[in-house]
């Protein structure tokens, strides 16, 4: 695959050159190829992003570079040339000198990548010691503090002796970045360094990472599933699909003129880009055509959003399905005097058949609102009216009836399905609980539901572990719809999914809403998806609703500083403005 930047005249010798890399995993059914002939070139000081969905081989490629393939993974062909030396021929001992010292690594999940039983200081110091950056206890400690301060931990000297669980996710990721850069490596591999974090935190961390790598002159190999993010942060893009590099070249070129059908689909589906495009097209400001290429197959989120806007404009005023008045939740904290107000005087209402998005960072109280609506948490103060009925005094039969009208879909499609129950039984469970129909009619309903969420009927006898994340989330939606509810509460229902799958699920939700007249409360931290699914938006910060308006108003004329910050943090923001 030749790419435009190969011929860049002013470039020096490549720092990292991957040639026809093949990586396989030994399984019971023989060797499974995860990377098939991938090639890429990264020059000193440059930034290159590998984009692809999960299973595309992007992380595997990165792990192959530092010879840390999980389990039975092995390089079966090709070369990884680092400063001209082939890393695939290195022994474990030789690799030890490369890892950390020449090639730093920032892993994906900050929660699981620090050893919980050792202090932060210990873990940073051992990296510094192992790479011989400093000697002597005092020097090493001084260097550790310095490294952490650079990475954005201002009070590093005080927090050295604390343990990972005393740090927030963003703080831990800063520690990991500090660790990865501690020995001033020539190359830093960042494997989805911020996908587990809130958008605003993501932005600060990536800004800092960019600044640091530029100062040190470290080349950055950035791995992400978010095309918008990749284009914003990297000069060059490599798009991977099913283990192969399908497209590579300068970021802007790929974004504006994607050649491969897969890239075209990605560009069309990326919510961050879609919401940007809607903005630029509605303002007719952009001189570049951001609309999806006509050849793009699959889901086009812009169309969905446009339809939504049109419908909303013509729709008559509808009655309120959910009314929340002055809702407050206070948690008593053991051993501390002050109570914690998770939700503080929140009021909003949702009209029947519309979608309201509740947006905020983690800890803003949005999920607590959902739990109180579902009566999974008690209300401290305030009122919740569902179809005009106060839910607080409901008990027994009446509560069961309420639950029948209101169903949840949760974030984690892996955790929310019982692994020991087949799909058919999972979907039928609400029917059994509410004693609806006999076994024959339940079976018929299950098949009908599977059809509604576009899953084959044969899936009814399969088990969750045989399904992909997207399929699982469809099952969760089918289960939520089993009782023909009026209201569906979607708590981060698409956050854990790949962009293409995310787009499909959003499309599905939109279709179901039109078809069945559902009311959605859509909870998310990602403003980008809000644009394509929601009619109204409530922005939450520290338990309070700080802004409440229609989606268009929020995106076009955000009132609060916090909302503007959230909007700016949507990856890809810089592209629309910069071009």
């Amino acid at each position, binding site marked *: 695959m030749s790419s435009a930047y190969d011929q860049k005249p002013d470039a020096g010798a490549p720092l990292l050159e991957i040639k026809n890399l093949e990586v396989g995993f030994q399984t019971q059914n023989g060797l499974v190829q995860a990377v098939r002939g991938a090639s890429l070139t990264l020059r000193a000081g440059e930034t290159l992003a590998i984009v692809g969905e999960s299973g595309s081989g992007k992380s595997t490629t990165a792990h192959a570079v530092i010879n840390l393939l999980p389990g039975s993974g092995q390089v079966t062909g090709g070369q990884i040339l680092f400063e001209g030396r082939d890393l695939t021929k290195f022994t474990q001992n030789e690799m030890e000198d490369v*890892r950390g010292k020449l090639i730093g690594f920032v892993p994906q999940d900050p929660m699981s*990548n620090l*050893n919980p*039983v050792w202090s932060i200081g210990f873990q940073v110091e*051992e990296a510094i010691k*192992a790479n011989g950056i400093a000697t002597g206890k005092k020097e090493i400690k001084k260097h550790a503090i310095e490294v952490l301060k650079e990475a954005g931990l201002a009070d590093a000297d005080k927090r050295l002796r604390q343990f990972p669980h005393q740090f927030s996710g963003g703080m831990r990721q800063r520690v*990991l970045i500090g660790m990865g850069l501690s020995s001033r490596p020539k190359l830093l591999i960042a494997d989805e360094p911020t996908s587990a974090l809130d958008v605003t935190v993501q932005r600060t961390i990536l800004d800092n990472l960019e600044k640091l790598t530029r100062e040190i002159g470290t080349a950055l190999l950035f791995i992400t599933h978010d095309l918008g993010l990749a284009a914003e942060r990297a000069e060059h893009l490599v798009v991977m699909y099913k283990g192969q590099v399908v497209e590579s070249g300068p970021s802007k070129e790929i974004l504006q003129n994607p050649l491969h059908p897969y890239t075209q689909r990605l560009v069309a589906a990326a919510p961050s880009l879609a919401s940007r495009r809607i903005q630029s097209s509605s303002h007719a400001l952009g001189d570049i055509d951001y609309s999806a290429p006509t050849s793009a197959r699959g889901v086009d989120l812009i169309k969905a959003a446009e339809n939504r806007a049109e419908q909303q404009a013509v729709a008559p005023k509808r009655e309120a399905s959910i009314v929340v008045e002055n809702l407050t939740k206070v948690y008593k904290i053991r051993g501390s005097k002050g109570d914690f107000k998770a939700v503080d005087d929140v009021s909003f209402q949702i009209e029947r058949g519309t979608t309201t998005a509740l947006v905020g960072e983690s800890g803003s109280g949005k999920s607590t609102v959902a739990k109180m609506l579902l009566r999974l948490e008690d209300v401290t103060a305030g009122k919740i009216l569902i179809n005009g009925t106060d839910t607080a005094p409901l008990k027994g039969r009446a509560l069961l009836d309420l639950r029948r009208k209101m169903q949840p879909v949760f974030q984690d499609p892996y955790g929310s399905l019982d692994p020991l129950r087949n799909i058919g039984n999972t979907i039928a469970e609400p029917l059994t609980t509410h004693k609806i129909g006999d076994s024959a009619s339940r079976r018929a309903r299950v098949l009908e539901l599977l059809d509604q969420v576009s899953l084959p009927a044969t899936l009814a006898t399969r088990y969750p572990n045989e399904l992909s994340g997207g399929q699982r989330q469809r099952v969760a939606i089918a289960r939520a719809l089993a009782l023909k509810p009026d209201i569906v509460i979607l708590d981060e229902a698409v956050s854990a999914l790949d962009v293409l799958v995310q787009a499909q699920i959003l499309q599905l939700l939109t279709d179901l809403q039109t078809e069945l007249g559902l009311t959605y409360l859509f909870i998310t931290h990602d403003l980008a998806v809000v644009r394509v699914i929601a009619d109204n938006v409530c922005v939450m910060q520290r338990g309070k609703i700080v802004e409440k308006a229609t989606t268009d108003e929020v995106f076009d004329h955000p009132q609060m500083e916090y909302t503007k910050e959230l909007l700016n943090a949507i990856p890809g923001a810089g592209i629309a403005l910069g071009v």
Partner: protein
Amino acid sequence: MAGYILRRLLQAIPVFIGTTFLIYFMVFALPGDPIIALFGDKTPNPAIVAQLRAQYHLDQPFIVQYLIYMGGIFRGDFGISFSGQPVTEILARTFPVTLRLAVIALLIETIAGILVGMIAGLRKGKIFDGTTLAVSLILISLPVFVIAFVAQFVFGVQLGWARTTVGTGAPTQDLILPAFVLASISFAQIVRLTRSSVIETSGLDFVRTAYSKGLGRRRIVPVHILRNSLIPVVTYLATDFGVLLVGATVTEGIFNVPGVGNTLYQAIIRGEGPTVVSFVTVMVLIYLLVNLAVDLLYGLLDPRIRYVK
């Protein structure tokens, strides 16, 4: 921390009262008359029987007997056995023997178990691992008395390395063979536990991150893998120490070890209420203390565990 310990000790009080009551009640409810049984085949003299009954308060209703007994315990008097010895003396004689036996067994199973389990875990799927799994499975499936008799026969009779029964005063070298027998089953459990724990930890993200920092295997195995893997093993070891301390009836019986388990067994057979209840009471106390020690040990191994007031 001190508040936590105090709270745990206070919690032990109702447990202590409840268990002694239950045990006392069960011994009381045992069929047969222990005083008549003392006479064996001879016809008991009614006057002597009545006198013995009065001496052991057996003529009183159950609740009175229990209260008299508990009153004694709080004065440090655990009652008198049928052989005329104070129970405290029996405890003082048997407990040190069992303690020595337990410590030796624990040392053997800890050192050997963790070492073998760790190597097996690090070499998952290799020959050493397979052999270890097979041997540990055999050890777990064998009843302890089979292992005891085989050990007695091979090492005691045929090789003559050890004595088949423990001599008077229970010299420590005599306790080594029974300790090995006791340790064998727990050893197998610890091997399997350590092995699976090491395998699990080795696959965790932070281990990969440790490699990516440039650390070598020699540092990663003890610092990042072993310490994290030991948390479940420590739980097992601690409860196992509790089990060992309250005596191993079968093994002590076979090797004739004059320890807690053996003595308790004899007392149950003879229906000696005070002896049985006193022994069990002490065992319950040991269990509570060992459990507390385990919970405190967790805090040392895993900083995430904090003690709420």
